[in-house]
């Protein structure tokens, strides 16, 4: 399959930022912000869903079994060093050769690689650090291993797991726009097109949109946590935070 010429957002060069954002046509239509934003959100959601499914179960299980400490340590080092853009770019020829097209597989896999370390690490560390006495007491009361994992360890770790989800989601959303430079669209298209057309309004507007979506993502995950995590667990988190003098 051969790459098709990419449809560019055509915006007159002299137009101001507010004017651009204030125009209904900028938002609606096939190349509009809503449509591009939906592309981005869809891809990010797919990445996060896959990432959670892939990272959480093994992290939880290994932490419960108190195994895989080295894997976790290695991931910390590795996770900080994954060059997402390079990975995605390297995957493009692979995807093309296999007939998957330009998009979105390379960027999907690169983003997944970005999301996995924080998801895995936070889950692993949180469960590993659940008070051993509590786990012991539960086991001695006749809790099965599954109950211990879900009703004690995971229940107590959930807030930190959510922190991992938030960190991963924000990173993924903030990085996804590189897709526009790898033959795709999404919210990154405005920056790309702005650069191509030397149009400052598009560059700044596109950057602002990306930042806004990343901030919204962080907020949404926080709200999601508030809705799903029971009161008893949430107050623990607040307490830990106030003890440490942070608002993590």
């Amino acid at each position, binding site marked *: 399959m051969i790459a098709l010429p990419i449809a560019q957002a055509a915006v007159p060069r002299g137009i101001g930022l507010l004017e651009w954002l204030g125009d209904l046509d900028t938002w609606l239509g096939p190349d509009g912000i809503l449509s591009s934003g939906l592309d981005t959100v869809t891809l990010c959601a797919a990445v996060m869903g896959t990432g959670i499914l892939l990272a959480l179960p093994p992290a939880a299980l290994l932490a419960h079994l108190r195994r895989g400490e080295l894997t976790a340590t290695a991931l910390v080092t590795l996770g900080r060093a994954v060059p997402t853009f390079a990975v995605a770019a390297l995957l493009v020829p692979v995807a093309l050769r296999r007939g998957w097209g330009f998009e979105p597989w390379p960027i999907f896999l690169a983003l997944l690689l970005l999301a996995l370390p924080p998801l895995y690490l936070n889950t692993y560390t949180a469960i590993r650090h659940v*008070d051993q*006495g*509590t786990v*012991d*007491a539960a086991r001695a*009361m*006749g*809790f099965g291993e599954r109950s211990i994992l879900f009703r004690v360890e995971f229940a107590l770790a959930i807030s930190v797991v959510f922190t991992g989800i938030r960190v991963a989601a924000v990173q993924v959303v903030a990085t996804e726009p590189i897709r526009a430079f790898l033959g795709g669209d999404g919210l990154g298209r405005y920056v790309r097109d702005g650069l191509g057309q030397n149009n400052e309004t598009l560059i700044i507007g596109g950057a602002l949109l990306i930042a806004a979506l990343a901030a919204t993502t962080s907020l949404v995950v926080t709200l999601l946590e508030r809705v799903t995590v029971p009161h008893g667990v949430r107050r623990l988190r607040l307490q830990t935070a106030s003890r440490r003098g942070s608002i993590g």
Partner: protein
Amino acid sequence: MTESAIRLLELTKLFDGAGEPAVTALTLDIPRGSIVALIGPSGCGKTTTLRMINRLIEPTSGRIEIDGEDASLRPVAELRRGIGYVIQEVGLFPHQTVHQNIGTVPRMLRWERARVDERVAELAGLVGLEPEQLGRYPDELSGGQQQRVGVARALAADPPVLLMDEPFGAVDPIVRARLQDELLALQERLRKTIVLVTHDIDEAVKVADRVAVLNVGGILEQYAPPDELLHAPASAFVEEFLGDDREIRRLALKRVGDLPFEQGPVLDIGRAPAEARALLDDARSEWIGLTSGGSFVGWAHRDHVEEAATLAALPRELPAAQVRASSTLREAMEVIMNSRTSVAVIDDGGRFGGIVTLEQIRSGLAGRDA
């Protein structure tokens, strides 16, 4: 006392990668309804032994019988629900209220809600928790209160056996003493079979009916009631472990009522002064005790007795040093040390029971079964 609730038979545990066993061929009979303390230096396998009873650790060889039944053949969850477990870290669920914590096992057994609530309220009363504390979270309670919740939770489904691993190790000495007293009061009512791990010989001597002293590697050095342990250590190891003041510790174990105490130089105030003088000469005592209607009313000095017309008219020394038959010898000794008369009067609710002297306490300690 003789029927065993738990029997450890040639129990051995060798951990993976360890050269020496943590517990070596340990055989122990734990009588039903009694408190047995496992004590010894670190590395003596006392906690390992405890954790083998509810199978948190599986033995390498040997057997554990609970009510005559091989514990390894019972489904582990069912076995554990019949064994309460209290640990030093308490291990309460921090995300659950005190009420939810105590109700954990009943809920697991699918009791009806009303029954769980009723049981939780009952247990709270039993361990001395206020009803309004039930809605709190564990971290809002003091260490001592948390441990009470831990005990209540362990007792929730009324298990016949209770395992306690240094249950009072994390609280200050005053709270610890109170919790020990509460445990004894609780045991008076519940008559559970309790196995308690401790490194504190005073705790073992105070709460246990029998004490098992373990040496490094889980080798049983001596298994005896506290008094016997203190009076006749079976080995140099036990003797050293108990310390030089082991005879003094025995004072806290024995009660005044156990002594062959005597009436002493004591007379009713209605009697003649001549009788009193004879009694004083007999007892070679400086003081004579006076009773009236069966109650002790005070001490009179020999000097006054010589010239008195009636005993009732004698100047009396009050308050007299008093103990009860249920007082420990340690308490009696303290009272005697602080009194001018060198004797304590046994008084139970106003009734004169006799007198205690240091000499009696000394001979009481010397005799094994005094």
